């Protein structure tokens, strides 16, 4: 298949079924295998709402030979494990895309209940006897999802061996028989796929760069976050379950103890952050994880962290709001709470990674910064980023520094130790319990250098300045992207300013726009507090028009930027609970490129 090599690959598979059908598991095997095969994969699963039952699941995976940044709004192939759920998604299958479904429904279904009657003329239908094959091979229908994956692999000429490896590792620990029967189910499906008459362009091209299979791993944003915590040497974790952050605690619960780390499921979010700060006070690296409602409850304690200057890391994965909102839908509407949700002038560092690799980086660096600047650090994720899978390559050697705390000088006069000493860099040498003769009390009351309560004007003024200024060097922190510009250099017609998970769609849109000859570039802002005002102003001033697409209603990031830069921007806001559509961004870019200065009109 020589033609394979010079044939770019970009196919998106959607597997749709109900919670009971093993939909997510099927998607998991597919993306793991293709990543193993060296393809670039981005995947995002959609679960039913928190309450149990037989809700709809969709596993989507985009498999490409080139680097891409988001899922496509159209899929090239839809696999139906449950027609009632899959039928509404036929419309997302592109022209000449294929739809794979079970052609032997248990009972003769009602008129219109069968997916085949919903296909568009331009769709390629593949009816396969998943259930029958599964029953024949494994004497149970439960493996029909595996049969379906096998069929897909055969149909698209995917390498069977990587699938075998993934299945083996996935079922390691389970009985040998199970692994074998699952593998057999896969092979049966695979053969059926191979035997199917198919058109050339169904085949996939070669993976990107050769021989990289080994170091490419499929990881979700939450998993990468967990890996970052582990590599940064997290000592203690305190958390309370809440979608979509729960997985972070669950993964840490199985990994940390292996390394001697300690994890506690606390009674609520207030105690989770309180214990995190208590642990941080002793010099340990501690973290918690939650979502918007939990962060709201943590607000007061976050303020104590800022005032008492105690390191603490909080991972906050956003979901649809306000209030309990839409727990299983994605949104970027907790920015205001993360940046401004504190009583008084209680600043803190807020980082928002834009992709899975960024989750790893921000997680690890968050511990360094919390320690170095003696402050709470919020890492702001969202459901789309937490649950999204990308094929990533983690650095060969651990990139995170072990101890970044500024310790008191050995032979410094220990008698009057000043925990809150006013220093050149505004960071005070920090003693922790156990240190000899530097006993002191930290407090949420305003205090003098010794930590003694004080409400003297000049002290409050000086300490307010200290707490503010000490964070500014974070804008130059090494080893992490604070903000970054992509696309055309210099003056451009349109600039797109983005943050968080949406930046993937922004990049895709920018690339499209440039293909269309529009001069434009995009900037991602990873550090939301303190805000890199300088670079943002530079960027805005380089752009004829600036667009800020984000998944919230109140244009939270846009207002933050304008408030800090005095610069007007165009807002693009969607609250559909789903990722931003590349097409929607592109459309706005076209409009802005078509006619500048329609600002007044806005």
């Amino acid at each position, binding site marked *: 298949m020589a033609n394979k090599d010079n044939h770019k690959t970009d196919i998106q598979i959607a597997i749709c079924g109900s919670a009971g059908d093993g939909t997510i598991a099927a998607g998991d095997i597919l993306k793991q295998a293709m990543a193993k095969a060296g393809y670039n994969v981005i995947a995002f699963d959609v679960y039913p709402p928190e309450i149990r039952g037989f809700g709809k699941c969709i596993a989507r995976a985009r498999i490409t030979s080139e680097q891409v940044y988001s899922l496509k709004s159209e899929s090239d192939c839809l696999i139906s494990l449950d027609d009632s759920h899959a039928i509404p998604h036929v419309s997302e299958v592109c022209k000449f895309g294929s739809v794979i479904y079970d052609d032997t429904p248990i009972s003769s279904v009602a008129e219109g209940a069968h997916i085949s009657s919903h296909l568009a003329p331009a769709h390629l239908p593949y009816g396969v006897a998943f259930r029958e094959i599964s029953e024949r091979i494994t004497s149970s229908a439960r493996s029909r999802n595996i049969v379906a994956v096998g069929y897909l692999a055969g149909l698209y000429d995917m390498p069977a061996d990587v699938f075998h490896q993934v299945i083996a590792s996935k079922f390691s620990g389970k009985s040998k028989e199970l692994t074998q029967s699952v593998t057999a189910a896969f092979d049966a499906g695979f053969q059926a796929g191979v035997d199917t008459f198919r058109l050339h362009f169904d085949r996939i091209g070669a993976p990107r760069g050769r021989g990289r299979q080994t170091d490419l791993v499929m990881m979700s944003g939450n998993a990468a976050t967990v890996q970052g915590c582990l590599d940064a040497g997290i000592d203690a974790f305190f958390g309370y379950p809440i979608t979509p952050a729960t997985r972070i605690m669950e993964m840490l619960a199985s990994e940390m*103890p292996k390394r001697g780390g*300690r994890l506690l499921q606390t009674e609520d979010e207030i105690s*989770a952050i309180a*214990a995190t700060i208590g642990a941080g006070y002793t010099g340990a690296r501690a973290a918690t994880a939650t979502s918007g409602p939990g962060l709201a409850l943590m607000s007061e304690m976050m303020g104590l962290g800022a005032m008492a200057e105690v390191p603490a890391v909080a991972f906050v994965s956003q979901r649809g709001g306000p209030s309990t909102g839409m727990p299983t839908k994605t949104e970027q509407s907790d920015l205001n709470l993360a940046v401004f949700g504190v009583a008084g002038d209680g600043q803190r560092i807020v980082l928002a990674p834009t992709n899975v690799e960024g989750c790893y980086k921000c997680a690890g660096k968050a511990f360094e910064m919390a320690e170095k600047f003696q402050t709470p650090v919020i890492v702001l994720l969202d459901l789309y980023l937490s649950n999204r899978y990308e094929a990533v390559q983690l650095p060969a050697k651990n990139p995170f520094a072990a101890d970044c705390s500024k310790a008191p000088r050995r032979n410094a006069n220990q008698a009057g130790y000043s925990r809150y000493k006013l220093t050149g860099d505004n960071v005070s040498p920090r003693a922790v*319990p156990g240190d000899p003769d530097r006993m002191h009390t930290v407090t*949420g009351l305003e205090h003098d250098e010794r930590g003694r309560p004080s409400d003297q004007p000049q002290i409050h003024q000086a300490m307010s300045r200290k707490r503010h200024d000490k964070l500014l060097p974070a804008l130059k922190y090494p080893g992490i992207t604070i903000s970054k510009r992509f696309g055309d250099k210099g003056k451009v017609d349109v600039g797109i300013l983005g943050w968080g998970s949406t930046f993937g769609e922004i990049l895709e849109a920018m690339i499209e726009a440039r293909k269309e000859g529009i001069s434009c570039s995009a900037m991602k802002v990873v550090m939301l507090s303190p805000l890199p005002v300088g670079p943002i102003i530079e960027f805005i001033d380089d752009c004829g028009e600036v667009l800020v697409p984000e998944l919230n209603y109140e244009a939270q990031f846009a207002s933050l930027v304008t408030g800090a830069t005095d610069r007007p921007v165009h807002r693009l806001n969607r609250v559909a609970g789903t990722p931003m559509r590349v097409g929607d961004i592109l459309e706005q870019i076209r409009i802005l490129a078509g006619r500048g200065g329609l600002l007044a009109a806005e």
Partner: protein
Amino acid sequence: MMNVTEPVYLEDKLEEIEGSGKLAYRAEVLPTWCPGCGYFSIVEGVSKAMTELGLDQRETVCVSGIGCASRFPFFMNTYGFHSLHGRALPVATGIKVANDDLTVVVVGGDGDAFAIGGAHIPHAARRNVDITYILFDNGVYGLTKGQTSPTSVVGFKTTTTPYLNVDQPLNPLTMLLSYGASWVAQAYAGEPHHLTEMIKAAIDHRGFSYLHVLSPCVTFDKTSMTYQNLSMKVRPLPDEHDASDFAAAMTAAQNIEVPQLGVYFSSERPTLADGMDDVVARAKAG
């Protein structure tokens, strides 16, 4: 049993404090509490207990919430964390989880503990976090100048209950027992010697120890939990009381008419740290 019916005035105590050598555990600053406040006996008792137990100051942390009682850490010469109203226990739990070598003494007022902090006590107790929790119960909100608290008696007149309090007070002792606290005792600020003994025993106990201290607020309670009234009411637990008998402890704790002083319940069981060590062991065993 010696009874104090007169408030203890700071002035009278000064030389005694200086003479005692207990200053090792006392910050240079003297407590800013009102003269006569029962809390003076507690800060006294804690420093005395620490002296006699020979605790290492640098390995000792006093954690508090917010309130008059919670000013305590500022008056001690140990490490201290003056945290937030109601949150002393979770902060202390984090400290112990991160560094089990530290001796952690948590202090708080009745409002700090049983009003805003009520969700945390059951869990610190059931997990048997190895800390000592000394509760300063004055039956009122002192720092905010005299409102009712969860331990205020029915009929108590305060700024928020000018037509008298109608809420039945809580019984901290039965509560802590029902939570599974492994050590529960009661003392009285008016009986400093017994108080000090209790504090020593509490710190000595391995696991979660709860010491309830009845302590008059001389400024905002002239009628209810005064030295006068308390000194007349309190009695020692009967000698025959068996602190290893949970049911007996529960029964004794139900007597709210006559507050009894002493150790209600004491038992040994694995601490949170023990449990976490097991978890690590199981994890490494794989």
